[in-house]
């Protein structure tokens, strides 16, 4: 089911990106940012879901990425035009810190470690691979 929901969300998201790009105003900007931030994680759900459409352990890092991107991009929207207002964090104004540490570094750790640690839940076993090779050797049906 996770894959089906993700595909439905991607359909809506792609139309929202298209429509908001051709519009103007704050609502269009917010819709664009939210849809663009969700797109990578939704695509990962489509790719990571097993044959039954279930996501398994990969759900955690992908959900983490979704939350990180949505929260950080939304925070940058809120801090737009008031760089000094959020104070300084780790050597940068808050908005820039959100961009560097929240969008560049945090997802890197989530995705790299999350993929490696949950690899067995969506990897392919050697017997599965043998059956696939056997299937490929058979003449095509019909």
């Amino acid at each position, binding site marked *: 089911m996770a*894959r089906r929901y993700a*595909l439905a969300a*991607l*359909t809506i998201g*792609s139309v929202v*990106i*298209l429509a908001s*790009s*051709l519009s103007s105003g704050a609502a269009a*900007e917010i819709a*664009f940012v939210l849809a*663009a931030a969700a*797109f*990578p994680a939704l*695509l*990962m759900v*489509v*790719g*990571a*879901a097993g*044959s039954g459409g279930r996501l398994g352990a990969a759900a955690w*890092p*992908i959900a983490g*990425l979704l939350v990180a991107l949505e929260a950080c*991009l939304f925070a*940058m*929207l809120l801090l*737009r*035009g008031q*760089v*000094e207002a959020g104070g*300084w964090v780790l*050597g*940068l*104004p808050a*908005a*820039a810190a959100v*961009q*560097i540490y929240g*969008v*560049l*570094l945090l*997802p*890197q750790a989530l*995705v*790299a*470690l*999350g*993929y*490696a640690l949950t*690899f067995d839940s*969506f*990897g*392919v076993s050697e017997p599965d*691979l043998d059956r*696939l*090779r056997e*299937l*490929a050797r058979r003449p*095509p049906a019909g």
Partner: protein
Amino acid sequence: MPALDQPVILATVLVYLALVVAIGVWSLRRTRGARDFFIAGQSIGLWITGLATMSAAFSGFVFIGGPGLVYRMGLASLFICIPVSFTSGLLCWVVAKRLRLLAEVRQVYTVPEALQARYRNRAVSGLAAVAVLLGTVGYLGAQLQALAVVIEAVFGTREIFGEASLAVGMAIGLVVIVFYATAGGMVAGVYTDLLQGALMVVAAAGVFFYALASGGGLESIARTVSESPELGPAFLDPLGNVPVFTAIGFLFLFGVGTLGQPHMLHKFYMLDRLDSLRWMPAVVGLGQTACVLIWLGIGLAVPALVASGALAPLAHPDDAAPAFLLGFTPEPLAGLAFAGILAAIMSTADSFLNIGSAALVRDLPAALGRRRPDDDAGRELARGRIAVVGVALAAALFALVYGDLIALLGTFAFGTFAAALAPAVAIGLNWKRVTAGAAGASIATGLVVNLGLELLSRRSDLAGVALPRLPPGVLPGVIALAASFSVLLVWSWLAPPQRLDRDVERVMEL
């Protein structure tokens, strides 16, 4: 670019070029057939594939154009490179396993061949091959132009050859790339990529720390920029100097669009084992993040140096990296960095030579219903080598004769690949409902919308004609990519699914 008449830089670049040629010679004896030539015999492990993917993805733009963009538009430009935080995971979760499994059950060496296996439709794979060739000419031509500029600066060829200097620089670079790409095909490609990737990471990390040190640390640099009357706090506002649609549009296009880049997808066919994928996002992602440090480091340090008066304002933003490397780093590190810039350009160029050659030798003939030459007789390998030379010469000729057009094609080649190929590959390899009609319509939409909008937005001779205009800051590539996804997804929900071959169906289930 200013002349780099320093002996250590020249020596470092010469040593690098000699190493690349040596790898070409070494690979010659290891390339025995088309499988070796196009996918390195499917015998490449985690580290080599990871660094090859990273170095093919990053062209010289990261080292030269990136810092220049920060100088021009502030931190908003980082949204072009920031998607590296998730793109390696995106590639691995969405397409890597399926592409590698397809190569297990079919003789699939290219992206159009994967689409042919998936959709059983020659129009789909033919359209994809056209997109690959169009993007290849743009990407390769732009790399050759950049190569000529860097070689001219390193070897000082303008003093000797005058107006013909760029052509001579391009010829020198082309001879080296064509030699190893022809001799060793993708075997040479991935091993030179390994050298080039390692060089890029070391150079970028080294320069980053020098950049921070030059301004007294990150906070000191940021405060200098923020307090400067010319730059001000807006320079450090990620959404400050450009419209939201541009900044987040970069993130969407360069993030999701990665799924349509053939020079990256191609690397997954070469993996020796599926298990090698486990740490792939870590290797590719960390390598890319290290390279991006040069963009961030020089990009912040140079404006701070200009603001503090330690460096004169730049005549051209793209001078940011050369000005910093020549003026503020020790000569050996500058030499390493310029070798890294050459490496970044050459690794991308050789990937496109191979992909362009495969499109000519395999994809287009197959789309036209022609049988492939018998590889046992070595004919496909021979044709592949000839095609590499042909693609290189054609791209060089176009780059010299139609320089502006090539520069234009180069700037939107990424968007062309993204809009044309990402939905058909990424969704198509994971969702059985996607039909050949949906894929074909999506590829055609991506191609037409992206090329159409990019060309229209640059036609100054149509100033008096009422043309459809995009809202300020909206990127044509974003519209094309979203339209291409919309067409494929909506069509697939509405149309009845088509039958798949059993092995391909199983690949999509595993």
